[in-house]
Structure formats: C-alpha cells, structure tokens
C-alpha cells in the first residue's frame, strides 16, 4: 500500500514540474500563437541560476534562508523573457510560422552555449536544499520532504495561475487578447504590453520549474532540450494553448511515466509519445484544445 502512495507521490512530483514547463509553453502559445522552441532552455536557465545562487554565491548562508533564494532562477528566466520578447519575437509575429520556429530554434542554440559559457560544461548542483529538508516516514518507508515541497509548489502554482487568469482584471485582458487580438486592440488593450507580460509569465513558470528541480537533480547542459520534448507531449495531449489541458496532460504524463519506469522501462518514452499520437488522432486539438 505505502509503495503505491510513494509511486503516486513520484507521479505527482513529475507532473508538478511538467505542468510548470508545459503551462508556460501553452500560455505563450495561447496568447501569442507562437511556439517557443527555446522554452526548455529557459527551464534550464532557471535551474542553473538557482543552483549557482544556492550552491556557490550564498553557500554559507543559513539553510532556512536558502529556501528564500529558490525563486532566483524563476526571476532570472522571467527577466530573460522580458528582454527576448520585444527584441527577437516581436518582429516575427507577422511572419510565417516556419520563421518563428526557426528563430526560436536559433535562440535555443544560443542559450545553450550561453549557459555553457557562464557555468561551464560540468553539472551544477544545489543539493543542500534537498539534503537539509530531510525525509518523512510514509507507512514505514522514507520519502524526501523536499519532493513534497515541490508537489506543493506545483499545486500552488496551478491555483495561482487559475486565479490570475480567471479572477483578475489582467486575466480578462489576457483572455480577450488571446481570443481576438485585433478586437482587443481596437477596444484599447495595449497588445504589445500584454504580449510581453504573457511571455514573461510563461518564462517565469519555466524558470520556476528549473529552480525547484535543481536541489534534487543537478543542472546539466541539454536538460532544456529534453524537457521541451516532454512539454510538447503534455501540450499535445492537453491541447496547445489551454492551461487546464497542460494540467491534465502533465498529470497523465507524470502517472504514465511513473508506471512506465517500474513496469516497462525500455519503452517508457515511446509509450508517452504514442499516447500523444493517439490523442491527436481521436481529438485533433487535444483533450482541452480549441479547434485550430
């Protein structure tokens, strides 16, 4: 029984991180109709910044205070997003989709090397936070407390995002822009501002995902490229541009992966992709997507 609970927690853990990454990707697509291939690199960037602040810059600080530094990666990724949108992406909105994909693919290559330049080719760890959190006992087995914290952050992020998009004035503007950019603009919405804000929030989420995974696993080069493909699986299952879809997709992928690792480890990734393909064949716009 407790084994099942631990498996469930692991599935949720994975789903929390995936939701943050895929939710950001989906939010950006929903508002701006752009798929950012460099999104995974912002996740990696968040991981590197947090590992660097926690592991080297403030290494001697009291561990309780270190937890307050966890969002550093998210803020750094948001800052990068706020710079990228007006400079690189804005000239591309009127261009064909292939150019948008290509420009962000170029960005992916650049960001990968920026991280190599800043932090070197070796993995960067911020494991103090993971170790200091200790573990709790679940029906006789030990489980890392930090993992529960990650699940909590994932859940809170989903809640905040929901409240933000559906309960605030800015959320209304955001949804209006997403549904009909021209009309929103005609009604006096500053579309440029909404775009930069939406992109920044999306990058913040990716950065936060990186920040919360880095204490339990190191920041390495290539983690962004891996994460992006999984985020694609999530948004394809849930529907590109839908936050609810990202949540459900992340839960499905999290659970299937957890089952896969213990039951069919060889084809675990293949099964995930196949689920995505089946969903696309049955419901072309994803489980929660609007028809394209």
């Amino acid at each position, binding site marked *: 029984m407790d084994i099942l609970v631990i498996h469930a927690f692991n599935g949720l853990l994975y789903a929390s991180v995936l939701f943050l990454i895929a939710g950001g990707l989906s939010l950006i697509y929903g508002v701006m109709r752009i798929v950012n291939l460099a999104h995974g690199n912002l996740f990696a960037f968040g991981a590197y910044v947090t590992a660097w602040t926690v592991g080297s810059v403030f290494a001697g600080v009291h561990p309780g205070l270190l937890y307050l530094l966890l969002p550093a990666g998210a803020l750094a990724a948001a800052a990068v997003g706020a710079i990228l949108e007006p400079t690189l992406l804005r000239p591309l909105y009127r261009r064909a989709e292939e150019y948008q994909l*290509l420009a962000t693919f170029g960005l992916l290559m650049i960001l990968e090397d920026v991280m190599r330049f800043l932090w070197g080719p070796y993995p960067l760890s911020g494991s103090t936070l993971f170790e200091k959190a200790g573990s709790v006992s679940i029906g006789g087995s030990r489980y890392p407390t930090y993992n529960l914290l990650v699940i909590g952050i994932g859940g809170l992020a989903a809640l905040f995002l929901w409240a933000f998009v559906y309960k605030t004035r800015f959320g209304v503007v955001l949804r209006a822009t997403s549904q009909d950019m021209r009309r929103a603009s005609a009604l006096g919405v500053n579309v440029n501002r909404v775009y930069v804000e939406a992109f920044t929030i999306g990058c913040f989420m990716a950065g936060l995902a990186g920040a919360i995974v880095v204490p339990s696993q190191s920041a390495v080069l290539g983690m962004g490229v891996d994460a992006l*493909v999984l985020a694609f699986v999530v*948004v394809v299952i849930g529907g590109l541009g839908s936050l609810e879809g990202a949540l459900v997709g992340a839960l499905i992928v999290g659970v299937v992966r957890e089952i896969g690792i213990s039951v069919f480890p060889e084809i675990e990734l293949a099964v995930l992709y196949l689920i995505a393909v089946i969903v696309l064949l049955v419901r072309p716009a994803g489980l929660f997507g609007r028809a394209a």
Partner: protein
Amino acid sequence: MSTFPVTLEVRSSVKPLAWAVPAALLLFALPHAIDPYQTILLAYGLVMAIAALGFNLLLGYTGLLSFGHSAYFGLGAYAVAFMVKYLHVQSLELLVLGAVVASLAVSALFGFVCVRYTRIFFSILTLALSQVLWSLAFKFFWVTGGSDGLRVPTPAVLGRLPDPAEDKILFLANAYYYYVLVLFLACVLVMWVIVNSPFGKALQAIRDNETRAEFVGIQIRRYRFVAFLVSGAFTGLAGALWVPLNGLTTPDILYWPFSGEIVFMSVLGGFRTFAGPIVGAVVFNYLKTSAVGFTVYWQALLGAILVFLVLALPAGIVGTFKHLLLWLRKRAFR
C-alpha cells in the same frame, strides 16, 4: 503561407542546365584539385544535400514544416548498421536498397498520422514521432548499441570487396565520393522531374491555397502523403550513404536537434528555390565544421547565423542571389 514576394519565373528546359552542367562537372573534377580531407567533407555535404532536397519537397513545395526528419535519416543509417551487423550484408547497393525500403515503410506509417495536420501541429507531431525512434534506439541498447551506437565497416562497392590493405581515407575520398556524387546527381534529377511534373505542380497548388486546390479536384491528403513518402525515402537514402562515411551511427542523428539542422540547411540555401537546399547543405557542412574548429561555442555562432537569416535574409543564399540577378538584369535593360 509565406509572406515575402515570390517572383514568377519563366521556366525553360535549357536554362537550369546552364547552371547544372558546369556544377556537376566541377563536382567531378574537384577531388583532383583538393586534398582527401576536403573531398570527404564535400561528400558529407552532398549526402546532407540529398536529405535537404527530400526535406524541402515538404517545406518548399508542399508547405509542411517537418521537425522530425532526423527519424528517416537515422532510420536509413540504422537500417544499414543492422543489416551489416545481423544479416552480414556487405554490398552497398543492397544496404542502400534496404535502407530506402525501411525508411519508406516508416514514413508511410508516420505520414499516415502526420498528413492529417498542417502548420504547427504537423511540426510538433513529426517531432514527437521522431523522438519515439530516438528513445527506442537509446533504450534497446542490446540491439542498437545505445548511446555508443553501432560501428559500420567499409562496405563492398559495386561488388568489389574492401581491400584491408587499402587506406580508408583514400577509399572514401575516391571511390566512395564518386559513388555518392552519382547517386546525388540521380536524386537531383529525380527531384527536378518530380517538382516539375503535374504532381509537383499540384503540391505547390496545395501549398499556396489549400481550399482552391481542393476545389480544382486535388485530393489534398493523398498528395501530401505521397510527398511525405518521397521525402522520407530521399532522407533515408541520405542516412544510408552517411553511415559508411562516418563509420558509426549513434542516436544523436535521431535526436530532434538534428532535424533542426536539416531545416537550417534548407533555410540557409533558400527553401523557395530548387537549388537552395543543395547549396544550403554543402555550405552548412563547411560552416559547421569550421565553427566547431574555431570555437567551443560553435552552437551559439550557428544559432546567431540562423536568427540573422530569419530576420534579415529570409530568402536564403540562392533566393537572395536570384533577387540580385533579377535586379541587375532590370537595371541593365533600363
């Protein structure tokens, strides 16, 4: 789909030959003028050109951007490696044939799913499917060698078994280079016939206006599917020819950033032109090799070039060259 102006050109059957024949003669003569290392580099470029040519049938002529062509390239490569390792096939002709058949089979399967979608969904779906193959190559290490990949020895070319005493570099720079060159020229010819055939024209009609094409009576999905098959077969052939050159196949060529490189090549050369992907592939190959030798941060360098291309030179090398020629001609006749 694209927004930049496309110049209408008057096609005659003689004009392209004025470019193609000297280029082909140059490619035949070059190994005598440059050292073996440069020749092998050029052979890599020609192999990639076959892949980009196949890829561009989808992007340039059908308007579908595939981000999963690493699948067919990798499949061609792995099919050769498997046939060598498990079936002990030595003849390169058989290996190439097997690889093309294998990539045709998989592109039929993937194409069946993918051609139902266009635009961004097509790109994501092709990417996701290609990663299925990547993960299989990665995880079934007892069959595929995992991340170490599979070694492929020199195959028998035209029935002549490899001579163990022969220098491999010289073999690749001579016999193998010409083998690749002949197949490359055949591919260019076949692709030229395809894009100028009624079938090719129908693809371009679908690209330019799907609704109108359907009204004219073109069965869009079937045409896209056939284009997908041809595209996959060309890329698979490229993968098969690439393995003996590289001597090793690893999951890296199945990983999606490699698909990105194929896209990069076509855009670098200009995907709105026939010769663009060819020029792009050869130039990209030189560019990458020199960037890797020049700095550890070669990825950033290539990325910056790609961003620059997209923002400033969307027509690519060949497209820009064409615009320039047209402009010069207009000035001359004024």
